[in-house]
Protein backbone atom coordinates (compact mmCIF):
# COMPACT_ATOMS: atom_id res chain seq x y z
CA UNK A 1 0.00 0.00 0.00
CA UNK A 2 1.04 3.58 -0.19
CA UNK A 3 3.94 5.25 1.46
CA UNK A 4 3.21 8.64 -0.07
CA UNK A 5 2.95 11.65 2.23
CA UNK A 6 -0.20 11.47 4.35
CA UNK A 7 -1.22 15.06 3.95
CA UNK A 8 -0.31 18.07 1.93
CA UNK A 9 0.61 21.29 3.61
CA UNK A 10 -0.10 24.82 2.47
CA UNK A 11 2.05 27.31 4.34
CA UNK A 12 1.45 31.02 4.04
CA UNK A 13 4.20 33.45 5.06
CA UNK A 14 2.90 35.74 7.74
CA UNK A 15 3.24 39.01 5.90
CA UNK A 16 0.85 37.77 3.19
CA UNK A 17 -1.99 37.16 5.61
CA UNK A 18 -3.04 40.48 7.03
CA UNK A 19 -5.70 39.42 9.49
CA UNK A 20 -3.92 36.49 11.02
CA UNK A 21 -0.63 38.33 10.82
CA UNK A 22 -1.67 40.82 13.47
CA UNK A 23 -2.12 38.06 16.02
CA UNK A 24 1.27 36.62 15.25
CA UNK A 25 2.91 40.02 15.42
CA UNK A 26 1.78 40.21 19.01
CA UNK A 27 3.42 36.89 19.70
CA UNK A 28 6.68 37.29 17.85
CA UNK A 29 7.08 41.05 17.67
CA UNK A 30 8.75 40.75 14.31
CA UNK A 31 7.62 40.10 10.77
CA UNK A 32 9.78 37.74 8.85
CA UNK A 33 9.49 35.12 6.20
CA UNK A 34 10.82 31.63 6.24
CA UNK A 35 13.94 31.03 4.27
CA UNK A 36 13.15 29.78 0.83
CA UNK A 37 16.60 28.37 0.35
CA UNK A 38 19.36 26.98 2.53
CA UNK A 39 19.24 24.07 4.92
CA UNK A 40 16.14 21.94 4.94
CA UNK A 41 13.54 22.30 7.67
CA UNK A 42 13.11 19.62 10.30
CA UNK A 43 10.78 17.37 8.36
CA UNK A 44 12.97 17.79 5.30
CA UNK A 45 15.75 16.04 7.19
CA UNK A 46 13.70 13.03 8.21
CA UNK A 47 14.61 9.73 6.63
CA UNK A 48 12.89 9.89 3.25
CA UNK A 49 10.82 6.93 2.10
CA UNK A 50 12.81 6.85 -1.14
CA UNK A 51 16.27 8.42 -0.65
CA UNK A 52 17.11 7.80 -4.31
CA UNK A 53 14.51 10.36 -5.35
CA UNK A 54 15.91 12.92 -2.90
CA UNK A 55 19.49 12.42 -4.07
CA UNK A 56 18.42 12.87 -7.64
CA UNK A 57 16.27 15.86 -6.76
CA UNK A 58 13.18 14.48 -8.44
CA UNK A 59 9.61 13.89 -7.40
CA UNK A 60 8.48 11.23 -9.86
CA UNK A 61 4.90 11.57 -10.96
CA UNK A 62 4.63 7.81 -11.18
CA UNK A 63 6.57 5.26 -9.22
CA UNK A 64 6.58 1.58 -10.11
CA UNK A 65 5.66 -0.42 -7.00
CA UNK A 66 5.70 -4.08 -8.03
CA UNK A 67 3.79 -6.44 -5.73
CA UNK A 68 5.26 -9.74 -6.87
CA UNK A 69 8.71 -10.96 -7.96
CA UNK A 70 7.48 -11.34 -11.52
CA UNK A 71 6.11 -7.78 -11.55
CA UNK A 72 9.48 -6.59 -10.23
CA UNK A 73 11.38 -8.38 -12.99
CA UNK A 74 8.96 -7.11 -15.61
CA UNK A 75 9.40 -3.52 -14.42
CA UNK A 76 13.19 -3.71 -14.65
CA UNK A 77 13.26 -5.47 -18.01
CA UNK A 78 10.66 -3.19 -19.54
CA UNK A 79 12.28 0.06 -18.38
CA UNK A 80 15.78 -0.97 -19.42
CA UNK A 81 14.84 -2.55 -22.76
CA UNK A 82 15.88 -5.96 -21.46
CA UNK A 83 18.89 -4.56 -19.59
CA UNK A 84 20.37 -3.03 -22.75
CA UNK A 85 20.09 0.64 -21.78
CA UNK A 86 19.79 3.06 -18.88
CA UNK A 87 16.10 3.86 -18.48
CA UNK A 88 14.87 7.44 -18.78
CA UNK A 89 12.72 9.06 -16.08
CA UNK A 90 12.17 5.79 -14.31
CA UNK A 91 11.34 5.38 -10.62
CA UNK A 92 10.89 2.17 -8.70
CA UNK A 93 10.29 1.37 -5.07
CA UNK A 94 9.89 -2.08 -3.65
CA UNK A 95 9.97 -3.99 -0.37
CA UNK A 96 11.43 -7.45 -0.99
CA UNK A 97 9.74 -9.03 2.04
CA UNK A 98 6.31 -7.94 0.85
CA UNK A 99 6.84 -9.19 -2.69
CA UNK A 100 6.11 -12.66 -1.37
CA UNK A 101 3.00 -13.84 0.45
CA UNK A 102 3.15 -14.92 4.09
CA UNK A 103 0.11 -17.16 4.53
CA UNK A 104 1.20 -18.52 7.91
CA UNK A 105 2.01 -15.16 9.47
CA UNK A 106 -0.60 -13.64 11.76
CA UNK A 107 -0.69 -9.97 12.67
CA UNK A 108 0.09 -11.11 16.20
CA UNK A 109 3.52 -12.22 14.96
CA UNK A 110 4.22 -8.58 14.21
CA UNK A 111 3.24 -6.95 17.51
CA UNK A 112 6.90 -6.96 18.51
CA UNK A 113 9.92 -7.33 16.23
CA UNK A 114 13.53 -8.10 16.99
CA UNK A 115 16.19 -6.27 14.97
CA UNK A 116 16.42 -8.94 12.27
CA UNK A 117 12.65 -9.11 11.79
CA UNK A 118 12.48 -5.35 11.76
CA UNK A 119 15.08 -5.11 9.01
CA UNK A 120 13.49 -7.94 7.07
CA UNK A 121 10.00 -6.42 7.15
CA UNK A 122 10.91 -2.79 6.58
CA UNK A 123 13.73 -2.89 4.04
CA UNK A 124 12.81 -0.99 0.91
CA UNK A 125 14.82 -0.51 -2.21
CA UNK A 126 14.37 2.47 -4.47
CA UNK A 127 15.94 3.47 -7.74
CA UNK A 128 15.41 6.36 -10.07
CA UNK A 129 16.77 7.89 -13.24
CA UNK A 130 16.23 11.42 -14.52
CA UNK A 131 17.50 13.64 -17.27
CA UNK A 132 19.68 16.28 -15.58
CA UNK A 133 21.32 17.90 -18.60
CA UNK A 134 20.08 19.75 -21.64
CA UNK A 135 19.06 18.59 -25.08
CA UNK A 136 22.49 19.65 -26.35
CA UNK A 137 24.41 18.10 -23.48
CA UNK A 138 22.32 15.30 -22.01
CA UNK A 139 23.29 13.91 -18.63
CA UNK A 140 21.39 10.97 -17.24
CA UNK A 141 21.23 10.78 -13.46
CA UNK A 142 20.90 7.44 -11.73
CA UNK A 143 20.37 6.86 -8.00
CA UNK A 144 19.95 3.73 -5.92
CA UNK A 145 19.05 3.64 -2.24
CA UNK A 146 17.94 1.44 0.61
CA UNK A 147 15.97 2.13 3.74
CA UNK A 148 15.18 0.04 6.80
CA UNK A 149 13.98 0.29 10.36
CA UNK A 150 16.49 -1.14 12.81
CA UNK A 151 13.98 -0.81 15.60
CA UNK A 152 10.23 -0.80 14.95
CA UNK A 153 8.75 -0.34 18.41
CA UNK A 154 5.58 -2.32 18.99
CA UNK A 155 1.88 -2.22 18.23
CA UNK A 156 0.21 -0.40 21.15
CA UNK A 157 -2.01 -2.42 23.50
CA UNK A 158 -4.94 -0.18 22.58
CA UNK A 159 -4.49 -1.13 18.90
CA UNK A 160 -4.22 -4.84 19.75
CA UNK A 161 -7.51 -4.58 21.63
CA UNK A 162 -9.09 -2.69 18.75
CA UNK A 163 -8.06 -5.36 16.23
CA UNK A 164 -9.23 -8.17 18.52
CA UNK A 165 -12.66 -6.56 18.86
CA UNK A 166 -12.83 -6.07 15.11
CA UNK A 167 -11.93 -9.71 14.45
CA UNK A 168 -14.63 -10.80 16.87
CA UNK A 169 -17.09 -8.70 14.91
CA UNK A 170 -15.94 -10.42 11.70
CA UNK A 171 -16.47 -13.84 13.29
CA UNK A 172 -19.96 -12.85 14.48
CA UNK A 173 -20.80 -11.53 11.02
CA UNK A 174 -19.60 -14.81 9.50
CA UNK A 175 -21.83 -16.74 11.94
CA UNK A 176 -24.89 -14.75 10.90
CA UNK A 177 -24.20 -15.47 7.22
CA UNK A 178 -23.45 -19.15 7.73
CA UNK A 179 -26.68 -19.67 9.71
CA UNK A 180 -28.64 -18.19 6.83
CA UNK A 181 -26.80 -20.32 4.25
CA UNK A 182 -26.63 -23.68 6.00
CA UNK A 183 -30.18 -25.01 5.31
CA UNK A 184 -29.95 -24.12 1.61
CA UNK A 185 -26.46 -25.60 1.31
CA UNK A 186 -27.82 -28.82 2.81
CA UNK A 187 -30.61 -28.92 0.23
CA UNK A 188 -28.10 -28.34 -2.59
CA UNK A 189 -25.89 -31.10 -1.25
CA UNK A 190 -28.74 -33.59 -1.21
CA UNK A 191 -29.70 -32.61 -4.73
CA UNK A 192 -26.24 -32.62 -6.32
CA UNK A 193 -24.00 -34.93 -4.32
CA UNK A 194 -26.29 -37.72 -3.08
CA UNK A 195 -26.86 -39.27 -6.52
CA UNK A 196 -23.10 -39.67 -7.20
CA UNK A 197 -22.01 -43.32 -7.03
CA UNK A 198 -18.39 -43.38 -8.25
CA UNK A 199 -15.39 -41.31 -7.17
CA UNK A 200 -15.34 -39.55 -10.54
CA UNK A 201 -19.03 -38.74 -10.26
CA UNK A 202 -18.49 -37.41 -6.74
CA UNK A 203 -15.66 -35.11 -7.80
CA UNK A 204 -17.68 -33.77 -10.74
CA UNK A 205 -20.69 -33.30 -8.47
CA UNK A 206 -18.49 -31.48 -5.96
CA UNK A 207 -17.54 -28.92 -8.63
CA UNK A 208 -21.21 -28.40 -9.52
CA UNK A 209 -22.00 -28.04 -5.83
CA UNK A 210 -19.33 -25.34 -5.46
CA UNK A 211 -20.72 -23.48 -8.49
CA UNK A 212 -24.25 -23.72 -7.12
CA UNK A 213 -23.14 -22.38 -3.75
CA UNK A 214 -21.45 -19.47 -5.53
CA UNK A 215 -24.70 -18.67 -7.35
CA UNK A 216 -26.65 -18.86 -4.11
CA UNK A 217 -24.22 -16.62 -2.22
CA UNK A 218 -24.36 -14.05 -5.02
CA UNK A 219 -28.16 -14.13 -5.08
CA UNK A 220 -28.57 -13.75 -1.32
CA UNK A 221 -25.91 -11.04 -1.11
CA UNK A 222 -27.51 -9.03 -3.90
CA UNK A 223 -30.89 -9.31 -2.19
CA UNK A 224 -29.38 -8.07 1.10
CA UNK A 225 -29.96 -11.31 2.99
CA UNK A 226 -26.22 -11.81 3.45
CA UNK A 227 -23.55 -9.34 4.50
CA UNK A 228 -26.03 -6.86 5.94
CA UNK A 229 -23.31 -5.47 8.17
CA UNK A 230 -20.65 -5.19 5.45
CA UNK A 231 -20.69 -1.41 5.31
CA UNK A 232 -20.38 -1.17 9.09
CA UNK A 233 -17.41 -3.56 9.03
CA UNK A 234 -15.79 -1.62 6.18
CA UNK A 235 -16.19 1.56 8.14
CA UNK A 236 -14.66 -0.03 11.22
CA UNK A 237 -11.77 -1.38 9.13
CA UNK A 238 -10.79 2.11 7.99
CA UNK A 239 -10.48 3.12 11.65
CA UNK A 240 -7.83 0.49 12.33
CA UNK A 241 -4.55 2.32 12.82
CA UNK A 242 -1.46 0.15 12.56
CA UNK A 243 1.02 2.81 13.71
CA UNK A 244 3.65 1.57 16.13
CA UNK A 245 4.90 3.13 19.33
CA UNK A 246 8.03 2.88 21.44
CA UNK A 247 11.57 3.17 20.16
CA UNK A 248 11.85 3.43 16.39
CA UNK A 249 15.01 3.93 14.39
CA UNK A 250 15.26 4.31 10.63
CA UNK A 251 18.46 4.07 8.62
CA UNK A 252 18.70 4.98 4.96
CA UNK A 253 21.47 5.51 2.46
CA UNK A 254 21.84 6.10 -1.23
CA UNK A 255 24.26 6.86 -4.03
CA UNK A 256 23.76 8.89 -7.20
CA UNK A 257 25.75 8.83 -10.42
CA UNK A 258 25.64 11.02 -13.48
CA UNK A 259 26.16 9.62 -16.93
CA UNK A 260 26.88 12.01 -19.83
CA UNK A 261 25.11 10.98 -23.02
CA UNK A 262 23.16 8.44 -20.99
CA UNK A 263 25.89 5.88 -21.50
CA UNK A 264 26.15 3.58 -18.48
CA UNK A 265 29.91 3.09 -18.76
CA UNK A 266 30.41 6.86 -18.60
CA UNK A 267 28.69 7.18 -15.21
CA UNK A 268 30.62 8.99 -12.48
CA UNK A 269 29.88 9.13 -8.79
CA UNK A 270 27.99 12.35 -8.12
CA UNK A 271 26.69 12.39 -4.53
CA UNK A 272 25.64 10.18 -1.67
CA UNK A 273 23.68 10.48 1.53
CA UNK A 274 23.01 8.76 4.82
CA UNK A 275 20.00 9.41 7.04
CA UNK A 276 19.35 8.22 10.58
CA UNK A 277 16.11 8.96 12.41
CA UNK A 278 15.43 7.77 15.93
CA UNK A 279 12.24 8.38 17.84
CA UNK A 280 10.45 7.36 20.96
CA UNK A 281 6.71 7.50 20.63
CA UNK A 282 4.25 7.36 23.49
CA UNK A 283 0.53 8.07 23.37
CA UNK A 284 0.95 11.81 24.02
CA UNK A 285 4.65 12.59 23.91
CA UNK A 286 7.16 11.83 21.17
CA UNK A 287 10.81 12.61 20.77
CA UNK A 288 12.50 12.52 17.37
CA UNK A 289 16.21 12.88 16.72
CA UNK A 290 17.89 12.74 13.37
CA UNK A 291 21.13 13.12 11.50
CA UNK A 292 21.83 13.46 7.79
CA UNK A 293 25.09 13.42 5.89
CA UNK A 294 25.11 14.54 2.30
CA UNK A 295 28.36 14.13 0.39
CA UNK A 296 29.31 15.37 -3.05
CA UNK A 297 31.98 14.02 -5.35
CA UNK A 298 34.39 16.96 -5.01
CA UNK A 299 34.11 16.81 -1.21
CA UNK A 300 33.92 20.60 -0.77
CA UNK A 301 30.29 20.95 0.15
CA UNK A 302 29.64 17.91 2.27
CA UNK A 303 26.95 18.77 4.80
CA UNK A 304 26.00 17.32 8.15
CA UNK A 305 22.58 18.14 9.61
CA UNK A 306 21.47 17.21 13.09
CA UNK A 307 18.02 17.84 14.45
CA UNK A 308 15.72 17.03 17.34
CA UNK A 309 12.04 17.53 17.97
CA UNK A 310 9.87 17.10 21.07
CA UNK A 311 6.15 16.74 20.42
CA UNK A 312 3.21 16.83 22.79
CA UNK A 313 -0.21 15.86 21.43
CA UNK A 314 -3.59 16.03 23.06
CA UNK A 315 -7.04 15.69 21.56
CA UNK A 316 -7.15 18.32 18.83
CA UNK A 317 -3.79 20.01 19.15
CA UNK A 318 -0.06 19.31 19.09
CA UNK A 319 2.78 21.46 20.38
CA UNK A 320 6.38 20.85 19.44
CA UNK A 321 9.83 22.39 19.70
CA UNK A 322 12.54 21.63 17.19
CA UNK A 323 16.21 22.32 16.65
CA UNK A 324 18.26 21.82 13.49
CA UNK A 325 22.00 22.45 13.18
CA UNK A 326 24.11 22.28 10.03
CA UNK A 327 27.81 22.04 9.40
CA UNK A 328 29.13 22.42 5.85
CA UNK A 329 32.75 21.65 5.04
CA UNK A 330 34.70 24.45 3.36
CA UNK A 331 31.95 26.92 4.28
CA UNK A 332 33.37 30.25 5.44
CA UNK A 333 30.03 31.26 6.89
CA UNK A 334 30.40 28.70 9.68
CA UNK A 335 27.78 26.49 11.29
CA UNK A 336 24.10 27.40 11.15
CA UNK A 337 21.16 26.50 13.36
CA UNK A 338 17.43 26.85 13.57
CA UNK A 339 15.17 26.74 16.61
CA UNK A 340 11.41 26.80 16.26
CA UNK A 341 8.17 26.14 18.08
CA UNK A 342 5.23 24.64 16.19
CA UNK A 343 1.57 24.61 17.19
CA UNK A 344 -0.93 22.50 15.26
CA UNK A 345 -4.67 22.53 15.83
CA UNK A 346 -7.11 20.12 14.22
CA UNK A 347 -10.12 22.03 12.91
CA UNK A 348 -11.68 18.92 11.36
CA UNK A 349 -10.47 15.39 10.66
CA UNK A 350 -8.99 16.57 7.37
CA UNK A 351 -7.87 20.08 8.23
CA UNK A 352 -5.12 21.29 10.54
CA UNK A 353 -3.99 24.85 11.25
CA UNK A 354 -0.36 25.21 12.19
CA UNK A 355 1.83 28.04 13.36
CA UNK A 356 5.62 28.20 13.47
CA UNK A 357 7.71 30.78 15.27
CA UNK A 358 11.34 31.00 16.29
CA UNK A 359 14.78 31.64 14.84
CA UNK A 360 15.89 30.61 11.39
CA UNK A 361 19.41 29.68 10.32
CA UNK A 362 21.33 32.90 9.78
CA UNK A 363 20.86 35.37 12.62
CA UNK A 364 22.70 38.07 10.68
CA UNK A 365 20.35 37.98 7.74
CA UNK A 366 17.08 39.85 7.49
CA UNK A 367 14.21 37.43 7.96
CA UNK A 368 15.97 35.17 10.38
CA UNK A 369 12.98 35.15 12.74
CA UNK A 370 10.32 32.66 11.78
CA UNK A 371 6.60 33.37 11.86
CA UNK A 372 4.36 31.27 9.69
CA UNK A 373 0.76 30.17 9.60
CA UNK A 374 -0.28 27.23 7.53
CA UNK A 375 -2.96 24.70 6.71
CA UNK A 376 -2.43 20.99 6.45
CA UNK A 377 -5.09 19.26 4.41
CA UNK A 378 -5.37 15.51 4.61
CA UNK A 379 -6.15 15.03 0.92
CA UNK A 380 -5.43 11.32 0.82
CA UNK A 381 -8.20 10.52 3.34
CA UNK A 382 -5.86 8.01 4.88
CA UNK A 383 -5.66 7.37 8.59
CA UNK A 384 -4.12 10.40 10.14
CA UNK A 385 -0.60 10.20 11.44
CA UNK A 386 0.67 13.33 13.10
CA UNK A 387 3.58 14.76 11.17
CA UNK A 388 6.71 14.20 13.14
CA UNK A 389 5.15 11.73 15.52
CA UNK A 390 7.15 8.84 14.18
CA UNK A 391 8.43 7.29 10.99
Amino acid sequence: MNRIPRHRAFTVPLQRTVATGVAWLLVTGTIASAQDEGPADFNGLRTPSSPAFVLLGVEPSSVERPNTPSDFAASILSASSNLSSLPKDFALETSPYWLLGHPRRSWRDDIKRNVLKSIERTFTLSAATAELGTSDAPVRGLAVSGRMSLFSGRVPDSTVKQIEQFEQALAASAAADIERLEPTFAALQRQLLAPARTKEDSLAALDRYTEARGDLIAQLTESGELGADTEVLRDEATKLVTAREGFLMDLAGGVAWSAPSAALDSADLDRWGVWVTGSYTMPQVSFVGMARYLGVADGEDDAVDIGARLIYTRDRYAVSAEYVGRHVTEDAAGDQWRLAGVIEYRVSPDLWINGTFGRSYDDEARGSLLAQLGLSLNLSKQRYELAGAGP
Partner: protein
Amino acid sequence: MIVREIRGIPHVIDSRFYQVKKNSQVTITVEVGDFQAGGTSYSWKGRTVIGNPNFTGHPVNGPGEPISGTTMHCLTKVTDMRPETNQTSVTYTLEGGVQEGSYPYGIEVVEDGMANYQITFIFTE
Protein backbone atom coordinates in the same frame (compact mmCIF):
# COMPACT_ATOMS: atom_id res chain seq x y z
CA MET B 1 -12.30 -23.54 -6.26
CA ILE B 2 -14.10 -20.54 -7.67
CA VAL B 3 -13.83 -16.82 -6.98
CA ARG B 4 -16.91 -14.62 -7.29
CA GLU B 5 -16.74 -10.89 -6.81
CA ILE B 6 -20.02 -9.86 -5.26
CA ARG B 7 -20.70 -6.23 -4.40
CA GLY B 8 -17.00 -5.47 -4.58
CA ILE B 9 -15.98 -8.29 -2.25
CA PRO B 10 -14.20 -11.37 -3.61
CA HIS B 11 -15.68 -14.64 -2.35
CA VAL B 12 -13.36 -17.63 -2.46
CA ILE B 13 -15.62 -20.67 -2.58
CA ASP B 14 -14.52 -24.28 -2.43
CA SER B 15 -15.73 -27.74 -1.40
CA ARG B 16 -13.52 -30.57 -0.19
CA PHE B 17 -13.87 -34.19 0.84
CA TYR B 18 -12.01 -35.06 4.04
CA GLN B 19 -11.59 -38.75 4.72
CA VAL B 20 -12.28 -39.92 8.26
CA LYS B 21 -12.59 -43.22 10.13
CA LYS B 22 -15.62 -44.32 12.05
CA ASN B 23 -14.29 -43.12 15.40
CA SER B 24 -12.28 -40.13 14.20
CA GLN B 25 -12.34 -37.02 16.30
CA VAL B 26 -11.60 -34.18 13.91
CA THR B 27 -10.09 -30.87 14.91
CA ILE B 28 -9.92 -27.69 12.86
CA THR B 29 -7.36 -24.90 12.82
CA VAL B 30 -7.98 -21.72 10.85
CA GLU B 31 -5.08 -19.33 10.32
CA VAL B 32 -5.54 -15.89 8.80
CA GLY B 33 -2.18 -15.02 7.24
CA ASP B 34 -0.34 -12.11 5.67
CA PHE B 35 -0.67 -10.16 8.94
CA GLN B 36 -4.31 -9.34 8.16
CA ALA B 37 -7.38 -9.31 10.40
CA GLY B 38 -9.99 -12.04 10.11
CA GLY B 39 -12.67 -13.99 11.93
CA THR B 40 -14.21 -17.41 11.29
CA SER B 41 -17.41 -19.25 12.13
CA TYR B 42 -18.62 -22.67 11.00
CA SER B 43 -21.76 -24.73 11.08
CA TRP B 44 -21.84 -28.48 11.61
CA LYS B 45 -24.95 -30.63 12.02
CA GLY B 46 -27.05 -27.48 12.26
CA ARG B 47 -24.95 -25.98 15.04
CA THR B 48 -23.13 -22.71 14.44
CA VAL B 49 -19.87 -22.14 16.26
CA ILE B 50 -18.33 -18.66 16.43
CA GLY B 51 -14.54 -18.44 16.37
CA ASN B 52 -12.50 -16.61 18.97
CA PRO B 53 -11.93 -15.09 16.48
CA ASN B 54 -10.61 -18.19 14.66
CA PHE B 55 -9.89 -21.79 15.68
CA THR B 56 -6.78 -23.58 16.87
CA GLY B 57 -7.03 -27.36 17.29
CA HIS B 58 -10.74 -26.99 17.89
CA PRO B 59 -12.68 -30.31 18.07
CA VAL B 60 -15.51 -30.47 15.57
CA ASN B 61 -17.18 -33.58 17.01
CA GLY B 62 -17.13 -34.84 20.56
CA PRO B 63 -15.35 -38.06 21.57
CA GLY B 64 -17.21 -41.03 20.05
CA GLU B 65 -19.60 -38.76 18.16
CA PRO B 66 -19.96 -39.97 14.56
CA ILE B 67 -18.68 -37.51 11.96
CA SER B 68 -18.68 -39.56 8.75
CA GLY B 69 -21.36 -38.42 6.33
CA THR B 70 -21.63 -34.96 7.87
CA THR B 71 -20.67 -31.58 6.42
CA MET B 72 -18.97 -28.53 7.89
CA HIS B 73 -19.45 -25.11 6.33
CA CYS B 74 -16.73 -22.58 7.22
CA LEU B 75 -16.86 -18.86 6.54
CA THR B 76 -13.87 -16.61 7.21
CA LYS B 77 -14.10 -12.86 6.69
CA VAL B 78 -10.77 -11.11 6.21
CA THR B 79 -9.97 -7.41 6.02
CA ASP B 80 -6.84 -5.77 4.65
CA MET B 81 -5.32 -3.62 7.38
CA ARG B 82 -1.67 -3.65 6.32
CA PRO B 83 -0.17 -0.71 4.46
CA GLU B 84 2.56 -2.95 3.01
CA THR B 85 0.36 -5.49 1.21
CA ASN B 86 -3.18 -6.11 0.03
CA GLN B 87 -2.71 -9.88 0.01
CA THR B 88 -5.05 -11.95 2.17
CA SER B 89 -4.80 -15.65 2.94
CA VAL B 90 -6.50 -18.29 5.03
CA THR B 91 -5.25 -21.81 5.75
CA TYR B 92 -7.67 -24.47 7.03
CA THR B 93 -6.07 -27.49 8.67
CA LEU B 94 -8.05 -30.60 9.58
CA GLU B 95 -6.55 -33.26 11.81
CA GLY B 96 -7.82 -36.50 13.28
CA GLY B 97 -8.97 -38.08 10.03
CA VAL B 98 -7.12 -40.61 7.89
CA GLN B 99 -4.41 -38.00 7.42
CA GLU B 100 -3.89 -34.33 8.14
CA GLY B 101 -5.31 -32.03 5.50
CA SER B 102 -4.03 -28.51 4.89
CA TYR B 103 -6.08 -26.28 2.58
CA PRO B 104 -4.47 -22.90 1.82
CA TYR B 105 -6.33 -20.12 0.01
CA GLY B 106 -5.35 -16.59 -0.87
CA ILE B 107 -6.50 -13.58 -2.83
CA GLU B 108 -5.46 -9.97 -3.25
CA VAL B 109 -8.02 -7.32 -2.37
CA VAL B 110 -8.28 -3.58 -2.87
CA GLU B 111 -6.80 -1.26 -0.26
CA ASP B 112 -8.69 -1.70 3.03
CA GLY B 113 -10.82 -4.27 1.18
CA MET B 114 -12.49 -7.43 2.43
CA ALA B 115 -12.50 -11.04 1.26
CA ASN B 116 -14.84 -13.87 2.22
CA TYR B 117 -13.64 -17.47 2.25
CA GLN B 118 -16.52 -19.96 2.05
CA ILE B 119 -15.07 -23.46 2.39
CA THR B 120 -17.17 -26.59 2.87
CA PHE B 121 -15.70 -29.88 4.14
CA ILE B 122 -17.59 -33.11 3.58
CA PHE B 123 -16.47 -35.89 5.90
CA THR B 124 -16.42 -39.28 4.18
CA GLU B 125 -15.20 -42.73 5.13
